[in-house]
């Protein structure tokens, strides 16, 4: 199963990954504010299995927040 790891404190909440994800499973975690003051991107655990490990989110992220493993 694929796994997407967000280095949350680096996220700037730009939502480019949200936009890039073909499965539309990335969303902003409105319950959290990171040290930079942003709601970080996340994938809800229940959505993680929809991930096809295409790596698009990681390729799109301008802040190298995302690691994808399979």
């Amino acid at each position: 199963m694929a796994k997407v790891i967000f280095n949350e404190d680096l996220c700037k909440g730009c939502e480019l990954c949200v936009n890039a994800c073909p499965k539309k499973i990335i969303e902003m975690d409105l319950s959290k504010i990171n040290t930079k003051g942003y709601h970080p991107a996340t994938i809800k655990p229940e959505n993680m299995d929809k991930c096809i490990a295409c790596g698009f989110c990681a390729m799109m992220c301008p802040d190298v927040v995302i690691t994808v493993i399979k």
Partner: protein
Amino acid sequence: MAVVFEKTKGLTDVPFSYCPGCTHGIIHRLVAEAMEELGVLDKAIGVASVGCSVFAYEFFNCDMQQAAHGRAPAVATGIKRVHPDKVVFTYQGDGDLAAIGTAEIVHAAARGEKITVIFVNNANYGMTGGQMAPTTLVGQRTTTTPYGRKPEVNGYPIRVSEMLSTLDGAAYIERVAVYDVKHIMQAKKAIKNAFLAQIQNKGFSLVEVLSTCPTNWGMTPVEALKWVKDHMEPYYPLGVYKNTLEEVK
């Protein structure tokens, strides 16, 4: 478990200082990955210019110099002449490269200086607050074209790749964009080719990357990507403008 994507060793641990969603970050990553994949990090010397990417010397995981505004190609020339066996690159914005640094980039290209230039065209001066750049589109509002860029007053945007391609010293010139994954992949290939042109001693190489400035354009990062596609790309056609590589990868 296999790693599909992880951060390249070509970047240091210092977080980028760019605004949220600014594609400077993507371009940095591509350059760093290209160097890592080509195995040249230990012999790379980069030149940061003046602009939002001024702190590039903190981000690339290799030796770096910070150059005066527009002079990165001259600084890179100095470095390359001392270390002809090293891989030297500059990272420059459109204000830096196409305005104040016009003479330096034209002559580095004409000399066939064996350096690689990453040219980030975001149609304005990001760092200083969104002023007009030589690449600002006709009609585009910026902080110094509050009524929109008027050709009668401010003239026309410069197509740098086309202009430099008229020079015999240019070995590899390509214009790319990073507004979606497909184009990001193409951009990476272009950057690798540009480094290869240097490594193969072909001459001067440059990749012009159409980039965003959501902050000064007054758009969300996602809107900004679309603006590149809809407004910049038509005036700045993507493609290879010069290629003398032995084998196109």
